[in-house]
């Protein structure tokens, strides 16, 4: 019953937060309680246990479960230490809605059902009040849904090997379009509320979606695994190079943050494309660092981004180091795992990756400055994010163990 509850409880929590909007305390209390119960259900969902209470078998894979827990932790941190001007109930509403959708995607027995849930998430997000034109908010994730649906449809047919390769293209392009990485970047408005911006696709829903799509793809791309991996690595490298340079050079600080998420996704895509356990481990560590590091830091930097206030204090430099993936922060073991995976397969790729790691540095210095001079809850939040990053950077084993690696 746990997977069903893991989906239902946060969903009901999000619904309560919406329904009780006029009574903020009640909305917050009910949503928080249901959210906590949902997380407990995720924790209790064992990977080797399939639940069939609703007529379909629901299972959470270890990797999905680990990412879900990280996403829940990120949400908890943000709700406990909300960014300036952020409403906790609103954060919970969006966060629990996303969490319910992510859990449903992860637990779904087929990619088709997962994509239907993705479609629902897309519509729910687009229904929020954003600054972008409605159609533009819709377009890229909708394209992702169509491409993934095409992959599923093609996988149901038999045909020449070309067909499998087309499935590969649809899966990878669909994933890229859903995430909003290059070349399928979503339109971005720096002033838009984060919940309805492209950021949740990159930093909240994306990791679970990637784990689900790549996990399900194994059976769909039989015979074209090399092409699948190569395409992921190619897209990953393109995202690393372009997005790290854009993080450094783009004119808007908020856009720089968006590019930095994309650059991290480049690493993750390379890791997923390398298919060996080290590569997958690297991707998972990147996901953790996105969820528990970059996302909260981005949200806490929003106020100073609005005020265009940049500072050069010690905290800014340490944040920059964390964002750059330097030791002892969580990005460094991810890079080591990636280097090992690449070296074991094809060492020139490791050389390219090693050189690309340097591209994070200038952009990260810029991002570090945009965090401003945090005080109060924001300062505690930044300290918590940095401490978590150091802990995972020096001892990532529990995280990888949680994901079954």
């Amino acid at each position: 019953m746990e997977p069903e509850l893991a989906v239902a409880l946060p969903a009901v929590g999000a619904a309560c937060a919406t329904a009780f909007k006029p009574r903020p305390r009640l909305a917050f209390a009910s949503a928080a309680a249901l959210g906590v119960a949902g997380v407990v259900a995720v924790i209790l969902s064992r990977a080797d246990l399939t639940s069939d209470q609703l007529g379909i078998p629901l299972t959470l894979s270890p990797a999905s479960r680990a990412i879900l827990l990280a996403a829940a932790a990120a949400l908890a941190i943000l709700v406990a230490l909300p960014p300036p001007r952020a409403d906790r109930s609103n954060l919970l509403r969006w966060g629990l809605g996303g969490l319910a959708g992510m859990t449903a995607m992860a637990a779904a027995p087929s990619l088709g059902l997962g994509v239907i849930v993705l479609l629902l998430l897309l519509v729910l997000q687009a229904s929020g009040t954003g600054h972008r034109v409605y159609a533009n908010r819709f377009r890229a994730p909708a394209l992702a849904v169509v491409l993934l649906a095409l992959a599923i449809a093609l996988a149901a047919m038999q045909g020449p090997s070309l067909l499998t390769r087309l499935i590969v293209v649809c899966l990878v392009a669909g994933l890229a379009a859903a995430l909003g990485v290059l070349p399928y970047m979503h339109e971005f408005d720096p002033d838009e509320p984060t919940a309805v911006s492209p950021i949740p696709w990159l930093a909240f829903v994306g990791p679970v979606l990637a784990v689900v799509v790549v996990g399900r793809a194994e059976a769909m791309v039989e015979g074209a695994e090399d092409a699948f991996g190569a395409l992921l690595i190619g897209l990953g490298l393109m995202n690393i190079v372009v997005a790290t340079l854009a993080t450094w050079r783009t004119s808007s600080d908020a856009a720089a943050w968006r590019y930095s998420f994309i650059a991290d996704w480049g690493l993750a895509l390379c890791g997923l494309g390398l298919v060996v356990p080290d590569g997958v481990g690297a991707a998972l560590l990147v996901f953790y660092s996105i969820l528990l590091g970059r996302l909260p830091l981005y949200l806490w930097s929003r106020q100073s981004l609005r005020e265009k206030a940049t500072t050069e204090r010690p905290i800014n430099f340490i944040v920059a180091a964390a964002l750059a993936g330097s030791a002892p922060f969580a990005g460094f073991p991810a890079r080591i795992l990636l280097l090992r995976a690449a070296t074991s397969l094809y060492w020139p790729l490791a050389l390219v990756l090693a050189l690309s790691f340097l591209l994070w540095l200038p952009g990260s210095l810029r991002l570090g400055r945009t965090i401003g001079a945090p005080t109060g809850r924001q300062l505690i939040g930044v300290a918590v994010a940095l401490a978590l990053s150091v802990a995972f950077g020096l001892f990532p084993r529990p995280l990888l163990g949680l994901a079954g690696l």
Partner: protein
Amino acid sequence: MSDVAAFTAWLGAATIVLADSRRGLAAGLAILAVGAAGIVWSQGEQGGAIVLLAGGVLASALRFTSGPDGWGLMQPGSTPRLLFVVIVAVVALWVALAATSGGSAGFRFAALTTLVLLGGRLLEAADPVVMPTAVAGVALVLGMVSGDGIVPYAVAALVTAGVSAMPVPAARRPRGT
């Protein structure tokens, strides 16, 4: 039966591509639902077909209640869309009949043609009413291609109806073609 259903599904998707107002879009969604349900029925999933049809019809009814008035079918400037509908049908027919096997040819044709048409519509449209209609159509097709047992069909049907029930903002700018 699957061949007729496949043609119906294409017709529904084509109507969504060619329509710009609520009546045309609702009709397209309803026709698509009939086609998708027909395909599912022909695969022996009668329960799933009924659920999918119900979801599609409900979505169609909901679409009928909102959006610009009229049918808006093949308005001036829609020639490229018409060509798109025809070319996609021809190519999908070739792929379904000559290049692929497995399942019925009708299923293959319906899945390919509807997804490509609706995908094209999503990329091209700017109207806030068209987008959810096309997405609802995609949900129907997703139910059709991935259904296995009554629950996935029910989920697809619910999402189809739910998407159409979501409020959409008023159009901010003239419709593009």
